């Protein structure tokens, strides 16, 4: 592949996008923690000890997560923050996918598509398993 294209995508756009997602995720996570402090008295401490005893929040649907976040529920806000964080590797693979597609390097389009499919399969497996 021409070095210039690879350079432009990898050295310029990828870092900017990755940093932006990372900063966005960090802001959402901090917001979630601040909400935890103000949600109900002992919300955070209660959750902490429940988790330590092995109890987790029940699995929630994506719809429930967004509704919860809109209502200011700390758990839902932080879950969204963590999902945003996992967009970083997804975005990087997607960038590479586009790069190889442009280069018509179909073997590598196949490899990157497989990795992307694996990441999506991960979410689906988590939902059912």
């Amino acid at each position, binding site marked *: 592949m021409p070095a210039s294209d690879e350079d432009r995508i990898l050295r310029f756009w990828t*870092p900017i996008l*990755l940093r932006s997602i*990372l900063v966005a995720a960090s802001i959402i996570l901090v917001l979630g923690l601040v909400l935890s402090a103000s949600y109900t008295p002992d919300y955070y401490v209660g959750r902490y000890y429940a988790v330590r005893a092995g109890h987790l*929040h029940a699995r929630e649907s994506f719809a429930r997560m967004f509704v919860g976040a809109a209502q200011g529920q700390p758990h839902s806000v*932080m879950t969204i923050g963590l999902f945003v964080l996992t967009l970083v590797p997804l975005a990087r693979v997607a960038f*590479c996918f586009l790069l190889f597609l442009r280069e018509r390097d179909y073997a590598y389009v196949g490899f990157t598509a497989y990795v992307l499919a694996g*990441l999506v399969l991960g*979410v689906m497996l988590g939902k059912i398993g």
Partner: protein
Amino acid sequence: MLEIVSELLLLAVASGFIGAMSGLGGGVFIVPALVIIAHMPMKIAVGASLISVVATSAGASVAFVRDGWTNLKVAMVLECATVTGAVTGAYLAGIVPTVVLELLFAAMMLQSAYFNVRKQGDDIIEHGDELARRLELAGDFPGDDGKNVHYEVVNVYGGGLLMVVAGLMSGLLGIGSGALKVMAMDYFMHIPLKVSSATSNFMLGVTAGAGALVFLARGDVATSIAAPVALGVTAGALGGSRLLPHANVSSLRNVFTVILILIALEMGWRALTRM
């Protein structure tokens, strides 16, 4: 609340810092820190750690890609293997008994310790095998004299198989499996050590991301733990990587090896007393 968050942040910053200084990644240290010091269940620690590995790699790999060491094609081929392993591992982590996870963790710590003391030098080969040539895996890296050094790649199947194991361990145990990945590339595929390390770091986020997505979608990530831990590990790792060029790494290596062996002994002991 402030007290608990501060304790988690402190553990996370320290783990991220040591992870970056040792080159082993934060996951190797945050899992035992959460299990042994914060008394968290193993599964909670694994979920939080996977998220932290994703966060750390997002911050760190930007610099690695810039330096021209990362072999993108090798990373893409091998990511197929690590993602397969990681999704399987993260799925199995919901089923596998804790005692098995603890024993596997101890084994991985011993492998990291072994890797830490026995890092090999570059072993550049001039003729790649058929598959590596077809996939155009060969590359160049900047040599000491300013000229590019060319290297070829062999044994893609062997390296790929070990990468499936690395992914499996990552999904099961919440670690980046960097030591195993570098070993697969360096020993099996004869990729120069520094290229192997940079490529492994590039792959880290995708491997851990695959596992993290399974945990997140399953509702197995305790957000109140994972949020401060991810923030802390990332901050610690950034600090560690800034300080790394000024540190005497070779003298620190023995300290890290001792820490890894101690973690292995503690995790092994926990597993044995649970039986």
